[in-house]
């Protein structure tokens, strides 16, 4: 029997890490992810886990220690947010290019400045091209479930890529909600033992990791990474299916909410999906055919699958909780629209940058988006495809 609990998103992540019981956790505190290593260090002190906890002096060192531990043949995990991830930047690329399946819990927060500690997705979007798998979570349950699935995806022989599980800072990380935990022994069995083929501490096979890789080689190694990211799509679905067999909770690349007969839909990630679903329900009562597509797997990006799921709609709004500041639109919008274009699917699509720096996004805000979509369907005129939702001074 699964265990019913009430936990915050950070507690859920820390408990997932406890059940995974990795060899090494190296982390540095930063709001709003601080509690994850804090709770985890309690498990270490209490002897609940066998993990070596490395209290490093910065996030750059946290990722470096994870890289060292993972190359040595161990399972390494960390947690961070925003500027902490920014300080890891250099090592983020080293981790993925050395093909080390490190798992990170990323509690999304605005990358300063001016100084802001609240939720948006600018941290995750900053590393979207770094070769990490990125899974997004609507609530504490999904943050927990995604972490339990993480190692089986990342460590797969066809993948071998690091993976980050994202959840919204404060909105999810500090909200206490009901959650269903899996029994310790079941998690242990599901996560399995990490047995890398090659690792530094294998005295039978001395190896070199991260050697000089100049013009004759880096190009080919990048192609290997690209192929691994493509292969990850199949592995993510396989692992999700096994997870569903264990828990009954179904996960795919994305969740389609009332999309079957929908005419207008919102595409978004993380906690806003909850608000969008509630709005959708409200509009359905009024006879408006609204739907939601919640992206779970952002890297690898399921471009073709999303394009097909949106193909029957009359208008789509893509919500970005980070701006690319490129004078064209947010990252999710660009990926969704390019996916549609490449697959020859042409649905009027509009972008809303929203919730920057932790600004609340309410049912009323989302309702306005659906109303705008109805207008686009009626007139066929998008006017401005790159909008800010609810910003002061905008008409």
């Amino acid at each position, binding site marked *: 029997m699964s265990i019913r609990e009430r936990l915050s998103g950070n507690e859920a992540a820390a408990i997932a890490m406890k059940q995974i019981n990795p060899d090494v956790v190296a982390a540095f505190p930063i709001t709003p992810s601080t509690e994850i290593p804090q709770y985890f260090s309690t498990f270490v002190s209490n002897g609940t886990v066998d993990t070596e906890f490395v209290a490093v002096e910065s996030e750059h060192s946290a990722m470096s220690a994870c890289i060292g531990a993972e190359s040595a043949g161990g399972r390494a995990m960390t947690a961070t947010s925003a500027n902490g991830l920014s300080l890891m930047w250099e090592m983020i690329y080293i981790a993925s*290019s*050395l*093909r080390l399946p490190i798992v990170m819990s990323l509690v999304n927060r605005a990358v300063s400045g001016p100084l802001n500690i609240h939720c948006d997705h600018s941290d995750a979007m900053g590393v979207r091209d770094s070769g990490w798998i990125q899974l997004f979570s609507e609530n504490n349950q999904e943050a927990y479930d995604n972490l339990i699935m993480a190692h089986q995806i990342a460590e797969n022989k066809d993948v*071998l890529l690091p993976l980050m599980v994202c959840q919204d800072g404060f909105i999810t990380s500090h909200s206490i909600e009901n959650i269903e935990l899996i029994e310790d022994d079941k998690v242990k069995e599901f996560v399995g033992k990490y047995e890398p083929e*090659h690792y530094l501490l294998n005295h039978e*096979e*001395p*190896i*070199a*990791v*991260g*050697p*000089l*890789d100049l013009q*004759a*080689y880096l190009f*080919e*190694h990048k*192609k*290997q990474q690209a192929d691994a990211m493509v292969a990850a799509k199949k592995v993510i679905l396989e692992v999700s299916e096994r997870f569903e067999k264990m828990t009954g909770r179904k996960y795919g690349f994305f969740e389609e909410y009332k999309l079957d007969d929908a005419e207008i839909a919102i595409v978004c990630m993380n906690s806003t999906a909850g608000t969008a679903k509630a709005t959708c329900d409200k509009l359905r009562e009024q006879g408006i055919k609204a739907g939601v597509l919640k992206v779970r797997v952002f890297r690898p990006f399921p471009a073709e699958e999303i394009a097909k799921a949106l193909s029957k709609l009359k208008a789509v709004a893509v919500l970005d909780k980070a701006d690319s500041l490129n004078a064209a639109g947010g990252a999710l919008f660009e990926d969704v629209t390019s996916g549609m274009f490449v697959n020859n699917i042409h649905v009027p699509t509009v972008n809303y940058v929203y919730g920057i720096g932790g600004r609340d996004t309410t049912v009323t805000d989302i309702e306005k988006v659906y109303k705008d979509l109805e207008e686009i369907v009626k007139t066929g005129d998008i006017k401005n495809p790159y909008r800010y939702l609810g910003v002061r001074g905008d008409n």
Partner: protein
Amino acid sequence: MTENEINSKTPYQDLTIGGNIYKAGNAKEFKTGDWRSTTPCFIPEKCKQCGLCYPVCPEDSIPVKDGKRLDFDFDSCKGCGVCAKVCPFGAIEMK
């Protein structure tokens, strides 16, 4: 797969991931002598085989056989000139 089988013609499918090298003791296969900008020239007529030059070479680029030094190993010599500095007899000239 060892680095011996990998070269600049190897297709990406046959490369080790991340460029890992699954064999030890292969640094000598990397010809770092390519980096050299000045070159030491050994003048055997002036050499007294005093033995001062080869212990100071940071790259072990002065081969020694039966207690006598031979000409430079240019596969690894980076032309630092330390050997020329310590030679009391002017038997090494940097060019």
